[in-house]
């Protein structure tokens, strides 16, 4: 390259210089001694099909981001609130309805307990939020309850926590999407029959948004979250003003009042417990921030803790406010002719039948779709942490072109879409499976934190320990209530799935452990060179350039090499032998006659007899099967060549003491 370059003449005689080309520059950058860093061009596909796929992917998902861009992809508090809190905040859209759905069985007297139940759930929310703020600060690496319990309790319990979380994240996507679709069908009943399709398409769009990366997902999803918060707060303010100041409001209708007469106290207590369990769905998503601490901009832990506090405050106000309005406006469930959600009825009562009502419905539906987005951030992150600890396949720890955990995102969307199809997009059918895992998870994480404080004994540990102990006792009680009241409605399925997942993860871990033990090399001392004898076997189809190249490759490795020719035509074999001995006399040719015309099995059988003939007191040799291969010029003519080689390769893969070496012959080489 340099030799062919003419020196450039400078301004003065004798001032000459040579400009050197730098062929590595488009693809690599030297970043240290013996260290290269690949640039975007080095990662670009080289085949036309690969390039086409990359441009299609680029159109939908965006251009690939380098790992060093990761910090730029981190979330500021405002975006993080939208991304990680949409799940928790959106549950205010259906938690009230779930409470009223149970209380309606007890009539108007029971319905009046709605507000008290929502306040009790808000107290629970405060306990959980305070506790998770502590987790954010103590475990800034993320992973939430899994990391806490793994460090402080033990492997099995941490896997139970992880399984419960994984199930709940899938449920979050399914429940929030189907609930969003219900908001749409409440406003536009004509779309009711298309609810499954709308739900699946929505999950597809959210998947696409998340595959584009965290920051872009934040840009897409932040606005609807804040629109919902703003319009819901306005609705609560206007509604409360009308009820408290103007004295408006309504009582429950006569059909509900008539039910009051026969209400028995124990039944009401059970109803209240059931309603409490149903409304506890409001807490789902609270743990997502603790799982995703590393997604925040520095200082990660502090920002995550602040975001969590803001989220809990907003959720508390929205949930209590909406329940207050629903109870005071005498709103109950309307299922026929078309379901009207409680929140849509409250909005209708406050905003009337005009544009503000439809806007609010649109914001609610959008937020509920985005609630799924919280899981799209937390679920893949948790899978990645589990994969890094060898409890899930390692591909889940790999980040895609846009620094998102693409495999986890795709698995989550497939599972959630499957649930929507199976349950026909009916939210109340999915709800019983929901919120069971999350309370198991809350309890485990807080118990883990108790042990954390007992071990660390850092300043203020007694106060922190008592917060976690109170939280653990509270959430454990709720876990028992939620599980028992929802057990026969579907919670049993979660209780079956958790041990199945724990078993699966333990199995994966054991497999990786076994592999690591098999591959382990001692850390001390020099590693010696090869000590086993090697022999080379070259299956041939005649004498041609590809075969000669393969023979020369074999000659470079060992003297113990032989060619094997399998045929059913002995005349042809004789002709080949005559030519072989003339042209390649130093390489023995073994002719295997195959009267049954099989081409592959005789080669394998020949290798077997070579192995058997090896002296039993000597270490088995390494057999290198060298396959001459003709490189096709076009994708379509690949079908014409190397088919026998491919079959032979499949037959030999995994054979003991055997290495397969392809020696490709390219035109002009």
């Amino acid at each position, binding site marked *: *390259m*340099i*030799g062919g*370059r003419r*020196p*450039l003449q*400078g*301004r*003065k005689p*004798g*001032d*000459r*210089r*040579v*400009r*050197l*080309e*730098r062929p*590595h*520059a488009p693809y690599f*950058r*030297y*970043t*240290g*001694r*013996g260290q290269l860093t690949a640039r975007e061009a080095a990662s670009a596909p080289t085949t036309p099909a690969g390039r086409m796929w990359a441009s299609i992917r680029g159109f939908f998902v965006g251009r690939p981001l380098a790992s060093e861009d990761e910090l730029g992809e981190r979330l500021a508090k405002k975006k993080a609130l939208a991304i990680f809190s949409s799940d928790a905040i959106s549950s205010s859209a259906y938690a009230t309805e779930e409470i009223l759905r149970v209380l309606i069985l007890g009539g108007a007297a029971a319905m009046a307990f709605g507000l008290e139940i929502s306040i009790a759930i808000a107290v629970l929310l405060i306990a959980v939020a305070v506790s998770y703020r502590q987790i954010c600060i103590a475990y800034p690496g993320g992973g939430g309850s899994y990391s806490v319990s793994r460090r402080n309790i033990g492997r099995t319990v941490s896997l139970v926590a992880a399984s419960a979380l994984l199930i709940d994240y899938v449920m979050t996507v399914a429940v929030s999407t189907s609930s969003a679709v219900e908001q749409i069908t409440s406003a536009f009943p004509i779309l009711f029959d298309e609810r499954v399709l709308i739900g699946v398409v929505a999950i597809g769009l959210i998947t696409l948004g998340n595959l584009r990366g965290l920051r872009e997902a934040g840009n897409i999803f932040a606005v609807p979250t804040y629109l919902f918060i703003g319009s819901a707060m306005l609705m609560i303010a206007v509604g409360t003003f009308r009820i408290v100041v103007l004295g408006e409001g309504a009582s429950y209708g006569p059909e509900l009042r008539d039910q009051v007469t026969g209400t028995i106290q124990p039944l009401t207590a059970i109803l209240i417990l059931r309603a409490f369990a149903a409304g506890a769905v409001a807490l789902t998503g609270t743990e997502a921030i603790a799982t995703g601490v590393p997604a925040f901009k520095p200082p990660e832990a502090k920002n995550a803790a602040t975001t969590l506090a803001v989220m809990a405050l907003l959720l508390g106000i929205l949930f209590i406010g909406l329940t207050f309005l629903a109870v005071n406006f005498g709103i109950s469930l309307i299922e026929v002719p078309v379901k009207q959600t409680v929140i849509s009825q409250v909005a209708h009562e406050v905003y009337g039948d005009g544009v503000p009502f439809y806007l609010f419905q649109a914001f609610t539906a959008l937020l509920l779709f985005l609630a799924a987005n919280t899981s799209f951030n937390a679920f893949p992150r948790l899978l990645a942490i589990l994969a890094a600890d060898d409890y899930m396949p390692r591909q889940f720890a790999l980040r895609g072109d846009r620094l998102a955990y693409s495999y986890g995102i795709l698995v989550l969307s497939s599972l959630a879409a499957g649930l929507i199809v199976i349950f026909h997009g009916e939210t109340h059918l999915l709800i019983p499976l929901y919120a069971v895992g999350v309370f198991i998870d809350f309890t485990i994480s807080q118990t883990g934190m108790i042990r954390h404080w007992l071990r660390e004994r850092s300043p203020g540990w007694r106060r922190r320990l008592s917060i976690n102990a109170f939280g653990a006792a509270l959430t454990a009680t709720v876990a028992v209530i939620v599980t028992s009241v929802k057990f026969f409605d579907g919670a049993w399925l979660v209780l079956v799935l958790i041990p199945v997942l724990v078993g699966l993860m333990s199995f994966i871990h054991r497999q990786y452990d076994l592999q690591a033990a098999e591959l382990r090399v001692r850390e001390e001392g020099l590693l010696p060179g090869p000590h086993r004898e090697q022999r080379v076997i070259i299956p041939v189809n005649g004498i041609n350039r590809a075969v000669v190249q393969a023979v020369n490759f074999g000659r470079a490795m060992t003297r113990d090499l032989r060619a094997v020719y399998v045929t059913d035509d002995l005349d042809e074999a004789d002709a080949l032998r005559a030519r072989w001995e003339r042209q390649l006399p130093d390489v023995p040719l073994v002719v295997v006659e195959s009267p049954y015309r099989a081409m592959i099995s005789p080669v394998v059988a020949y290798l077997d007899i070579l192995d058997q003939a090896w002296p039993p007191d000597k270490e088995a040799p390494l057999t290198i099967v060298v396959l001459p291969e003709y490189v096709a010029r076009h994708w379509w003519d690949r079908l014409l060549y190397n088919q026998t080689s491919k079959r032979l390769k499949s037959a030999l893969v995994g054979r003991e003491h055997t290495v397969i070496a392809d020696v490709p012959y390219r035109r002009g080489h």
Partner: protein
Amino acid sequence: MSEPQAPAFRRAVVALNGGPSDERIVRLVAEHARHTKAELIGVHVVEIDWTLPLDSDIAGRSEEVQRVLDAAEAVAEESKVRLEPVLLQARDVGAAIVDEAVERAADLLVVGLPYRKRFGGEFAIGRTIPYILQNAPAAVWVVRDPISEEPR
């Protein structure tokens, strides 16, 4: 209207000597170039002894030489500016830098000056920078390294 802090330029040649001053001068010029959308050309010259042919394969094979340009390119990228790396072999570093700047029609030449002392304690400016100052048709910025120790 206030005076701009530094004169605007369209195209700057940044002479890279492989020392610690490279990062400083690239960052400085890149910050200016980002606002003016100016072009940056990073030039590293490997001096070839008269005993060897000028086009002998010296710099192309050296990982260390390539690293000088790659590091400068990376620093410029951090400031969201593209720097075109140019690797030269020449008998005289100063002449090669000036000739490259002339050929590229650069209107600014930036050189780093390490703070070095001759035996005896006198500040040594070397011969490349005086040559550039005398011969470069473009404006020249000389950025001297800070003095790490207080002179006695």
